[in-house]
């Protein structure tokens, strides 16, 4: 009986709070979040379990994340946004750049990877140093050769913008702007970038057919590439030494994260999806074209490295015909509906054509 009274009193109390809340206007507009869901393509594994566990996906959160992603004010000089190095027409890699440009004419030391299907990754970056999608932006935001800013300064700048106050309220219930909310919003955008509508996907769904040449390429792929570039994500998210020489930045890859010499020169296996658009290749963009990448695996692998992947000890023998077939198969992994999806483009602009790329 007593519990009943307490519950009804509490309910009354809560309801009245809502009524009062509804009539109090803080000047930053409504809070009416529309839930959205992460699209899981059929036949795909479940996404990483904790990716959105503490970050409820809403349309408002996604839109806020998108605005932040395209906002140059997040950088020291106001020019470099996340999108500067992650361009939609390049599947969110940097088009035609081995390394990317940071503030004050600096260069990054690694090739910007494409951003898609991140919800299926447990760790991010070429060395897997990032353990959660929400904390990833902290690196480019503060790296002196990327966005070169301090977190305090970023928050200071966006706090002054009334539009952001409205959008933070719309996404999180009040106009408080802090690093946690900013990072969660960005993760709602980047974590829901899904690319699963290439010709390959259409073939798998029975909506299209490979040409005989592509079909042969698929056979080559399955026989010689698929153990690391595992379908359907075209990566197994592992770290491997694929036989490249140590570069001029002395980048030892995964070893820097684990401190284990057995991880020397190991880098994350990148997805082959959209590979046609994400050139140049490898962690430092040292190889320009897909045929050249295949040639590296056929003849270029440096085999006297103690951490060389066991699967590459004999390199990957392949005929010229097989190589060409493989290239054409890789082209079927290009998802133009992803790179042209206006939902991922800035709200007030259009997807820049690579031809007009200002870099």
């Amino acid at each position, binding site marked *: 009986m007593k519990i009943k009274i307490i519950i009804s*009193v509490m309910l009354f109390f809560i309801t009245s709070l809502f009524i009062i809340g509804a009539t109090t206007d803080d000047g930053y507009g409504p809070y009416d979040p529309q839930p959205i869901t992460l699209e899981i393509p059929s036949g795909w594994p479940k996404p990483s379990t904790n990716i959105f566990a503490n970050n409820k996906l809403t349309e408002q959160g996604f839109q806020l994340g998108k605005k932040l992603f395209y906002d140059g004010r997040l950088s020291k000089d106001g020019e470099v946004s996340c999108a500067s190095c992650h361009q939609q027409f390049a599947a969110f890699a940097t088009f035609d750049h081995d390394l990317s440009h940071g503030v004050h004419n600096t260069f990054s030391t690694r090739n910007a990877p494409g951003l898609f299907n991140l919800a299926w990754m447990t760790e991010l970056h070429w060395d897997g140093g990032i353990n959660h999608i929400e*904390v990833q932006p902290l690196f480019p935001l503060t790296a002196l050769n990327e966005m070169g800013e301090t977190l305090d300064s970023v928050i200071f700048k966006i706090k002054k913008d009334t539009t952001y106050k409205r959008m933070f309220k719309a996404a999180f219930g009040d106009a408080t702007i802090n690093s946690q909310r900013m990072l969660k919003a960005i993760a709602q955008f980047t974590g829901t970038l899904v690319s699963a509508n290439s010709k390959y996907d259409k073939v798998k769904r029975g909506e299209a057919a490979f040409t005989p040449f592509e079909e042969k390429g698929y056979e080559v792929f399955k026989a010689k590439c698929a153990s690391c570039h595992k379908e359907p994500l075209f990566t197994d998210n592992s770290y491997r030494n694929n036989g490249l020489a140590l570069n001029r930045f002395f980048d030892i890859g995964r070893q820097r994260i684990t401190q284990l010499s057995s991880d020397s020169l190991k880098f994350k296996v990148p997805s082959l999806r959209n590979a046609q658009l994400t050139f140049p290749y490898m962690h430092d963009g040292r190889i320009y074209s897909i045929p050249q990448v295949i040639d590296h695996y056929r003849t270029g692998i440096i085999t006297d490295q103690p951490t060389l992947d066991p699967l590459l000890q004999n390199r990957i023998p392949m005929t010229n015909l097989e190589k060409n077939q493989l290239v054409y198969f890789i082209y079927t992994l290009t998802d133009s509906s992803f790179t042209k999806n206006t939902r991922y483009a800035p709200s007030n602009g259009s997807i820049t054509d690579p031809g007009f790329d200002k870099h």
Partner: protein
Amino acid sequence: MEEKRSGIMNKNIFYKRTFVTGCILLAGITSLFITASFSVIDKNSSAKTGTLKIIFRNTANGKPVILRDSLYNNYFGEQYSISKLKYYISNITMGNNGSSNDMGGYYLMNVATGDSSLELTLEPGNYNSLGFLLGVDSLRNCNGAQTGALDPMNDMFWTWNSGYVMFKMEGNSPASTSDLQRIEHHVGGYKGSNNVATKIHFNFTGTVPLEIIANSTTEILVETNLDNYWHGSTDIKISELPVCTIAGELAKKIALNFKNLFSIKNIRIIP
């Protein structure tokens, strides 16, 4: 013009009325709510609470730690000054005759900002143990963006190799071989054997139990004695280890001394 103004007036009156009605409603409901909660308290008097305040006093050579000021000597006679001292205290537990109260919480002690204490609300009674973690537990290290004490704006989060710096000390020493004779100890690491978060435990059994009294504050003064940072379970010489800014072997070595850093100096009850 007139019309516009009267429109605003009407709006204002509307808001005022709504506000007043809301206030009356809220007051009424709050009193009902309070009455309701009191009826619960009558049944079970433990709903009254007391406060536990843990104060950390940082010392070296018996002197308080003052940034960029005092000079201290470690066990090996190496002189040093301190410019930064920050560490996480988390996962506080209070033991009560075998059962343990997990109070949770994450607190950043920071000499520069004067953050040197934490407060918890507890059920009154006698407690016979106090535990906390120096650092941040593994789970919270890989759980995405955090706020409050764990906000990356506190400059205690590694951006390139995700994870919290659990204990940060910076300073200078003539014994340091590093650039500008720097000491830069960012001690962290949460994965497997690299985990440096250290469980600290105090028992009050056999001595006076820790008493929490309703509506009072029990204040525990914990000394963080940096003398034990350099010497204890292992030797940390500035000349050999001036810089440690990554997780791994060096950080683990430093963390071996963590368990001797803290001692309880005083407990008092402030009514």
